[in-house]
């Protein structure tokens, strides 16, 4: 059993070492340190998973590392404890495992970048915060990790900050996250006020003894969901994720696909006992998830930047995960999180390989026929596309299928199970379609690549292709473990009720059909008859523009919120400058003047000191003896 604090400290140590001493050792050492530390953490997580597995007693199936009491004021005690149970095991393995592969990939991808060292410092820091988030027992400590990953996300999105656009994207991500975090903080506050503790283990036992009132639980869950929506890019706080593609592609893979954006789902799964108390909140979660799934999928149809397609795809898939946890199928939500981590990371890394090979080209319309030049990338991306579309027997099929079944059978608030399942199915069709579109536009057909870029076209080095292959294999076979997966998480979430075979089969066939239809249609549109999409776009005219321009959501926010806030800011600034600043400066000035005056009492003459001394003594004597000697 590996003590938990070492799990999270390894990447932090690597980050600090690279920060202080990285100047003196070369890129090889920096990379080795960075990748090695994450690998060590991965081994530690594996070891812990094994340790949990072999113990049958419930008490030993949880590893606890009590570090210290951070804040103890009155009755509120906040401890820095780390807890590893089955759920956090899964998350840790994903973070460190996929994280390690992405670190490895980054060595090749960022090899010629001047900010190599800085990149790995940020990346390690991110892994540290993410692990802290996942392993924390106390919600406040989780929040530290939450904020920390937001910070690293900001740093990495705006990594090439010389270009204002990138810096703005980072800023946007941070600000939108902040709005969500506000909800999270309020939710934590309400939890603290009602239950008196922020520790998840204590909350669980407290709620088991005496459930929180439904209304309060709803409030808490909705507030926390606001935080999750910010972090995991759901409606209405998803707008930062597409912009976040300004960062290096491995960053998009790790942070904006596999780990950070899943923090919201994880948080809800961790606090499932709270969501169980509030059907309304769960229903809202499911509804928002479903709505986001289809909304983002629609936008993804018309995007031409390869990374933006994947970004909207991520938003959409996250919607699936929220749909799952919203209907109570926590196990399947986490399962989809896992499979999504595999194939989405794969897709992003593959896209990165394409971009790398094309010397920076990201526009799908300027690609084509790459399958001959980038064979490994093509095969692995094919695997990823099939997985995300939900074609059996790859992983995505199993996870998506189980979610749709669970949704169909559930009876949530807001929208009924049938509606949710239907929306999910429609989104699955769109997913298959736009992913197929991506694959076809990039790898099939005649080459539309610019001449200079075509000249340098090359497959990526082994440091980039090996992770792709590993992830492709995982995407292919992970689905077969879905029974083991639900068994593994059963101690936390209970066993799912057995599903009626006929509904299960119907949904399964429907999802397969939809996946194949989507892929087939995309092949038709983009390989066989390339002219069709253009004609449809022209025919739809304004509607197409609407979708391609992301439904003008950003512009709407800008008008509604940003401009309003801006003008409030201008007014406040005027008031601040002329009223408040005057007051504050006057106070400060008068204090300084007071200090100046008093300082003259300090004359430097010892006799005067003695006089003051005597005055003090006399005063004290009088005060103590009450006047009468």
């Amino acid at each position, binding site marked *: 059993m590996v003590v938990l604090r070492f799990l999270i400290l390894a990447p932090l140590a690597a980050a600090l070492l690279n920060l202080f001493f990285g100047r003196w050792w070369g890129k090889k050492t920096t990379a080795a340190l960075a990748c090695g530390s994450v690998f060590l953490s991965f081994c530690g997580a594996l070891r812990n998973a094994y340790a949990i597995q072999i113990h049958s007693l419930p008490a030993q199936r949880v590893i606890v590392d009590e570090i210290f009491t951070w804040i103890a004021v009155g009755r509120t005690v906040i401890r820095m404890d780390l807890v590893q149970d089955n759920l956090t095991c899964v998350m840790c393995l994903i973070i460190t495992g996929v994280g390690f592969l992405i670190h490895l990939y980054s060595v090749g991808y960022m090899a010629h970048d001047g900010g190599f060292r800085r990149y790995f410092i940020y990346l390690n820091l991110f892994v540290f915060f993410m692990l802290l988030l996942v392993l924390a027992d106390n919600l406040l400590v989780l929040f530290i990790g939450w904020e920390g990953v937001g910070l690293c996300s900001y740093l990495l999105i705006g990594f090439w900050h010389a270009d204002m656009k990138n810096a703005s994207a980072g800023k946007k991500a941070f600000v939108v996250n902040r709005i969500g975090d506000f909800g999270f903080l309020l939710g934590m506050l309400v939890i603290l006020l009602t239950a008196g503790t922020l520790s998840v283990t204590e909350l669980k036992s407290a709620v088991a003894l005496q459930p929180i009132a439904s209304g309060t639980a709803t409030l808490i869950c909705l507030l926390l969901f606001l935080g999750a929506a910010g972090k995991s890019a759901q409606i209405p706080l998803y707008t930062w994720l597409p912009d976040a593609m300004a960062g290096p592609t491995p960053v998009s893979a790790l942070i904006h696909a596999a780990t950070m954006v899943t923090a919201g789902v994880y948080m809800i799964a961790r606090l499932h006992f709270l969501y169980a108390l509030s059907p309304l909140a769960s229903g809202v979660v499911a509804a928002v998830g479903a709505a986001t799934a289809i909304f983002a999928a629609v936008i993804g149809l018309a995007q031409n930047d390869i990374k933006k397609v994947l970004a909207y795809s991520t938003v959409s898939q996250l919607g699936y995960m929220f749909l799952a946890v919203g209907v109570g199928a926590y196990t399947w939500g986490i399962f989809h999180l896992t499979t999504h981590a595999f194939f989405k990371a794969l897709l992003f890394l593959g896209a990165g390989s394409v971009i790398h090979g094309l010397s920076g080209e990201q526009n799908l319309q300027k690609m084509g026929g790459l399958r001959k030049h980038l064979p490994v990338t093509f095969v692995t991306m094919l695997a990823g596309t099939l997985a995300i579309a939900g074609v059996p027997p790859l992983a995505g099929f199993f996870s998506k299928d189980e979610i749709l079944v669970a949704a169909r059978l559930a009876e949530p608030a807001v929208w009924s199970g049938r509606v949710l399942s239907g929306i999910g199915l429609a989104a699955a069709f769109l997913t298959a379609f736009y992913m197929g579109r991506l694959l076809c536009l990039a790898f099939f057909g005649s080459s539309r690549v610019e001449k200079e870029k075509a000249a340098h076209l090359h497959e990526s080095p082994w440091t980039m292709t090996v992770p792709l292959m590993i992830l492709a294999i995982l995407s292919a076979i992970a689905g077969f473990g879905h029974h083991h997966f639900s068994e593994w998480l059963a101690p936390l979430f209970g066993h799912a009720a057995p599903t009626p075979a006929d509904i299960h089969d119907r949904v399964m066939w429907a999802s397969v059909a939809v996946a194949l239809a989507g892929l087939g249609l995309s092949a038709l549109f983009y390989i066989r008859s390339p002219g069709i999409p253009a004609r449809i776009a022209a025919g739809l005219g304004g509607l197409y523009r609407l979708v391609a321009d992301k439904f003008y959501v950003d512009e709407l926010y800008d008008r509604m919120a940003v401009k309003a806030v801006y003008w409030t800011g201008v007014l406040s600034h005027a008031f601040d400058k002329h009223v408040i600043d005057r007051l504050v400066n006057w106070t400060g000035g008068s204090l300084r003047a007071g200090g100046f005056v008093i300082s*003259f009492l*300090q*004359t*430097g*003459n*010892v*006799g005067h000191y*003695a006089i003051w001394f005597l005055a003090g003594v006399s005063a004290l004597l009088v005060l103590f003896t009450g006047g009468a000697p």
Partner: protein
Amino acid sequence: MTFFPVGLSHYLCLSGVLFTIGVLVVILRRNLIVIFMGIELMLNAANLSIVAFSRHLEDMSGHVFVLLIMTVAAAEVAVGLAILIALFRTRRTINADEVSYLRW
């Protein structure tokens, strides 16, 4: 001719007067050596009162105390005079009023 008994209160009164004189010397006189003398006067006034109390309470520890205080006072004075000499060597004055570069 009878002498009235000299009791504790007389000693204390004397001690208080001496102490006050010592304090005034420290405050009012400008010559550093005289100020030292004033401090010594204060310490010895305290010694006097301790001895008086000790006699009154018939407790030996007061006398012991006074001896120790005198020792400490002597050490203090030695150090003080050394500091005075160092000061004189740099500033060529032992007037307390002139030694006030550090102020405000």
